């Protein structure tokens, strides 16, 4: 393989990583606060894609506005879901909060996916991207929509990281995730933070869907694969750890990019593409059950 070819694959891997990271971010935040793995995240992502499509293609709004619309719509949706379905997880109404949260979000994902199938129909849609055309970096060509999505993703990730670390809202989010009772005693509104976190997570899913829609088409099952990658990433990085999620995304992007072309049997190499990350995940968990960046707990 020539150097250019290697670079090209690495670059593609990086771009894909930023997509994965974007899809995973919201998941990590929601888990971070509510200790809920949002199994409906892929469907929220898909709804973000449709919101963007409706805003840009049907209402004729400019793409930038479309992205904002998608994020806002999904934030509202997230708040609603949190209020209606998620709240029993932490207000003591659910007898088995952990299982409840897993099952309720899984059920929600079934509902949303089928609802989208019925409402939007099977046809893929391709809304106008933020940028069109190709960008040439030396000999490497990257298409504009991908680069735009990747760029926005990187910026978003940076902003979010800073927000979590340096703003009070971010700290409140972390505090609530660790001890709800203590948070309430110190004056934090647990329900508001819970809703904020879920709405933010959903908005991030929506953003990801809006940015990815023009790249991978807007279609009801569009969230299924990315969300599995997102799971892999957040688990790789340690659930709830944002830097972990980013590392996880980078690793996964490169593994998929290179494994697909390095495995000698080309047919198998591609057939197993979606399995590489899963195998990696299983491998890493066996060595470090808390993920790459997760931390151990005191036992007794």
């Amino acid at each position, binding site marked *: 393989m020539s150097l250019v070819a290697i670079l090209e694959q690495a670059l593609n891997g990086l771009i894909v990583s930023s997509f994965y990271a974007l899809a995973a971010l919201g998941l990590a935040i929601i888990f971070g606060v509510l200790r809920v793995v949002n199994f409906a995240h892929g469907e929220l992502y898909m709804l973000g894609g449709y919101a963007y499509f409706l805003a840009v293609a049907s209402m004729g709004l400019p793409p930038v506005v479309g992205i904002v619309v998608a994020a806002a719509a999904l934030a509202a949706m997230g708040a609603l879901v949190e209020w209606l379905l998620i709240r029993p997880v932490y207000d003591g109404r659910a007898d088995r909060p952990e299982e409840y949260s897993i099952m309720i979000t899984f059920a929600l994902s079934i509902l949303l996916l089928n609802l989208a199938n019925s409402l939007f129909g099977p046809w893929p849609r391709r809304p106008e991207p933020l940028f069109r055309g190709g960008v040439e970096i030396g000999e490497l060509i990257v298409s504009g929509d991908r680069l735009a999505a990747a760029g926005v993703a990187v910026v978003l990730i940076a902003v979010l990281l800073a927000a979590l670390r340096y703003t*009070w809202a971010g*700290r*409140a989010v*972390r*505090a609530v*995730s*660790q*001890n709800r*009772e*203590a*948070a*309430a*005693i*110190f*004056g*934090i*509104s*647990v329900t508001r933070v819970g809703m904020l976190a879920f709405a933010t997570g959903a908005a991030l899913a929506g953003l990801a869907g809006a940015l990815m829609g023009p790249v991978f088409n807007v279609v009801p099952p569009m969230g299924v694969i990315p969300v599995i990658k997102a799971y892999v990433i957040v688990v790789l990085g340690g659930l709830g750890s944002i830097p972990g999620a980013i590392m996880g995304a980078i690793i996964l992007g490169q593994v998929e990019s290179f494994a697909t072309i390095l495995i000698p049997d080309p047919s198998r190499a591609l057939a197993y593409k979606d399995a590489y990350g899963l195998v990696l995940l299983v491998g890493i968990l066996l060595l470090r059950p808390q993920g790459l960046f997760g*931390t151990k*707990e*005191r036992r007794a």
Partner: protein
Amino acid sequence: MAQLEVRNLHAGYSRDIDILRGLDVTARESMLTTIIGANGVGKSTLLKTIIGQLRPHTGTIRFGERDMRDVNTRDLVNLGIAYVPQKHAIFPEMTVQENVEMATWAFRHEKPRARSAVERVFERAPYLREFRSKRAGLMSGGQQRLMQLELALMSDPELLLIDEPTVGLDPKRAGQIYDHLRRLVTEERRTILMVDQNVIAGTDVADYIYVLELGANKLEGTKKKFDEEYRDAISEWLF
């Protein structure tokens, strides 16, 4: 006149079962009031009802002018109330420093106040300094409890509600805590309502004592009255 008054309180964990059955308790201003009673009589339940984790079935709870029946736990700090629950309430995955900062949440926008509150903690509890950048959940049981007591004091509460202040603390530190609570009452004129199983020490620092039995009042009186009249009742438990 900010005293806490609980009148004819009925409360519990499910609507149809009263754990507290007509309880009357008053935490008088600038006094340390201690509640004692057998396990499961409802002491913690009383505190949880006062701070709004449980809703009273009937009865009244007043703090000064404020009707506390529909209070939300998150508003406690603003009302000048701090609460230390029986089980640990800290943020285990945050560092000690971050825990201390989180305790200033309610007045985070008053920067000088928040800053000095943080500084005071580390002055008062130098041992916390060593653990400043260590995750709080990794400290020993007693260390966590101590930190939690410190956190509760940061907001300069008028009323302090403490469920078992010294469980897990070594005798030296327990003694210091009792001294400190005493000082808060006598020197800073704060009001404290605490539950304590450490009957001797807990009543020793108290101004006023309640004894509960099965969700209702059994005995009450000033420390003096207790020392004089109810010694026997207490020693019956002890020996």
